[in-house]
Structures are given as C-alpha cells and as structure tokens.
C-alpha cells in the first residue's frame, strides 16, 4: 500500500501506456474483422479457410509472436508496434469468427423481410444485419478486450513499458508489492474495458431492453 501511494504517478503512466497498447488493437481488429466476417458469411466457401487461418494465428503464444514480429515488419525488437500488430492479429482471429457467427445468427426471415421491402444489400448489412449481430459481436469483443489487457503485460519481458513492467521490476528486486499492484491495476483496467463495451453494446441495442415485464 505504502509502495503504491509512493508510486502513484508511475503506476498511472504505466496504466495509460497499457490501455493504449490494449485499445488500439481492439479498435483496429474490430474494423478489420467486420469485413472479413462479412466475407465469410457472404461467401460460404471462404468461411472454413478464414476461420482456420485466423485460428492458426490464434494458437501462437504471445511472447513468440512478439519476438517474430520484427521479421515480418522490419521493426526493432523493442518497438511497441510489434505488440500492437500482434494483438491486432489476435483480436482479428477472435472476432472474425464471432462476426461471422453473429451475422449468421441473424434470423433468415428478418433478412428476407428486409430484402422484400427493397432494402439493398449494402444498406441491409448496415441497417439490419450488423445491428442485430451486435450482442454476439460484443460478447466476442469483451473476451478480446480482457485477454488483450492480460497479454500486453507479457511484453514487459521484452522491456516495453506498461503495467507488466511492475512484474519484472518486482521480481528482479524480490519485492511483492509492485507485482500485487500491477495485477490489481491490470484487473481494474480489464474490468473497465469490459464494462465499457457492455455499456456501449446495451446502448446500441435498445430493443433488447424493452421486453415486457413479467
């Protein structure tokens, strides 16, 4: 506790770093996963290869992926871009399937009704299919957000500063306090992102809250 109070500024700074490293991949990943997921539902032949391909990337352990990134990107090993790109890959891997399944879970009769009313394919996607898939996509996004926060801390082993740095520092000095603070801060950050997504998703799907009270 004493250690925490004495290092408030440092912890706050690390937390901000951590949040940025976790958030950017989440947003970029979502933006890329939506068209990919749409492709997978629109063209059924693409579903299996897309899901299998992204699933393969998802199996690669994070530390390994961070280290391999410079080979692909030509970056230095200490460059935070490695972390951002690697996490974006994970986010896409998780969300492509979720988006595809979410779009697939939109009832067929709703899509047919939209078509019958003369709503074009593009408009139908934005105004009918995507909104109805929001709950499923949000569920996937929450998983991605929480796991991103956890994974970012691994990058401390490569010397990229964020909350994980508290773990490596504490361990090197045989000092538990920073580790405990780091764990708690990570969990708080994860919870905050989780709740934020939940809130946005609820705000975006008012029809799910209007059930008749029983």
């Amino acid at each position: 506790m004493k250690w925490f109070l004495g290092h408030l500024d440092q912890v706050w700074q690390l937390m901000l770093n951590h949040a940025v490293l976790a958030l950017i991949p989440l947003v970029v990943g979502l933006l890329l996963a939506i068209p990919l997921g749409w492709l997978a539902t629109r063209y059924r032949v693409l579903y299996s290869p897309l899901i299998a391909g992204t699933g393969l990337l998802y199996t690669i352990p994070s530390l390994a992926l961070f280290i391999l990134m410079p080979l692909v990107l030509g970056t230095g090993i200490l460059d935070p871009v490695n972390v951002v790109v690697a996490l974006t890959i994970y986010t896409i891997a998780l969300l492509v399937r979720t988006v595809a399944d979410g779009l697939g879970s939109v009832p067929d009769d709703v899509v047919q009704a939209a078509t019958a009313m003369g709503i074009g394919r593009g408009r139908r996607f934005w105004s009918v299919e995507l909104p109805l898939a929001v709950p499923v996509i949000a569920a996937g996004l929450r998983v991605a957000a929480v796991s991103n926060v956890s994974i970012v801390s691994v990058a401390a082993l490569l010397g990229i500063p964020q909350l994980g740095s508290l773990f490596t520092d504490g361990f090197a000095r045989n000092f538990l306090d920073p580790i405990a603070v780091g764990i708690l801060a990570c969990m708080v950050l994860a919870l905050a992102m989780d709740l934020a997504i939940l809130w946005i998703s609820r705000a975006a799907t008012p029809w799910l809250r209007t059930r008749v009270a029983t």
Partner: protein
Amino acid sequence: MNLLWAWLSNPENWQGSSGIPVRVAEHLAYSAATLVLAALVGIPLGLWIGHTGRGRVAVVNLVNGVRSVPTLGLLFAAVLVVGPLLGGDIAFLLPSIFVLVLLAIPPILAGAYAGVEGIDPGARDAARGMGMSSLEILFRVEVPCALPLIFSGVRSAALQVVATATLAASVSLGGLGRFLIDGQAYRDYGQMAGGALLVAVLAVLVDLVFAGVQRLVVSPGLAPVRSARRVRTRAQLATNPT
C-alpha cells in the same frame, strides 16, 4: 531472418542438455503434467456442475475472472510467495506448475460444464425413462454428448499451458521459453526468434494433435450445428493466447 536461420541450422543447438530436443521434451513434460492435473480437477467438477446444475454462475464468473488476471504477474507472485518456503529447483518448478494448473482449470471446467448443460433435456429424460441409473446416464449419455465441448475446453487449456509454460522460463524454468529469455539476455536475436518459431510450431502441432484425437473420439452424430446459442457459449469459453 538470417540470424534465425543461422541459429536453427547450427548443429550445436540441437545437442546436449540445453539443446532443442531436450527443451522440447521439457516443454511437453510440463504441459502434459499440468494438463493432466487440471483435467483431473476440471472435468469431474464440470460434469458434476452440469449434471446437478449447481454453481453455474460461479463457473461463468470464474472463467471471466481468471481471464482478467495477468498470467505473468500471477507467475511472479506465486514464485515470490511460495518459492522461499520450498528451496532448491523445486522452488521455481512447483509454483509455476501450480499457476499453470490454476490457469488451465477454468477452460476445462467450463467446457465440461457447458457440454453437459447443453445436452437435449429430452435425451436425458428418455435415458431415465428407459431405466438407466444415474451413473449410466452420466457415462452413456452425458459424457459422450458433452465430449465436443469437453474437448474444446481441453484444447483451449492446452494452448494456454503451452504458451504460459514459455513464460515460465523467466522464473528459471526449462522448456523452449529458455531460448526466448536467454536470447533476450544475451541480445541474441537469432536464438530468440528461433525459439519463438519453435514455440509457435509446437503450439500449432499440439492443437492439431488434439483436433485429430477429437475427430477420432467424438461421435460423428455430434457434428456441430451452428446456432446462436453455441456461438455465445464459444465466446464465453475462449481463452487468452497468453
């Protein structure tokens, strides 16, 4: 790329007590031991929760809660707290395995639970109506029907364990993680990247082996039917790549 290739093709790195084959064996040994322990706890507990319906909320919260705990921090904390009580090599090994098991239990538990819970109530009712005992229902109907989700739980756990075992090198454990950590310490990118590649390949192979076994063991009658309900279960059960 050249550094990576040079390291991988150097015959010295394939020999001795810190050579690649030994590290692979260590890595697999940790992972297998962890997975067996986690399965011994997680599968019976998950089946019990699914069978009786008790403690469902706890499962979902546990899975979500554990997902938000940063693995690396947990590993370091465990070694710092438990290590001094033990002494010797085991001071690093035991806490690490403990953390690995701890992280592997939730996905296995959740898979077993969701598998049993998702069984068609009609099938269970029919089984009872035909005069199956509670144990017969469990082993002849519930477990076989739950196998696909039990397997995906174990598969997620396996990936998690292979990945986290890599991190355990930072607390002086063996396994492929050594190349990543030592390479970093000696500023030897070839070793780091070589080790990273090996870890990636190992993870993919482990996943493929599980996929193959799953195909052999699970009844073809349970081929997945995609539905919104399953999608949501899957999202809940997904684990970190760590």
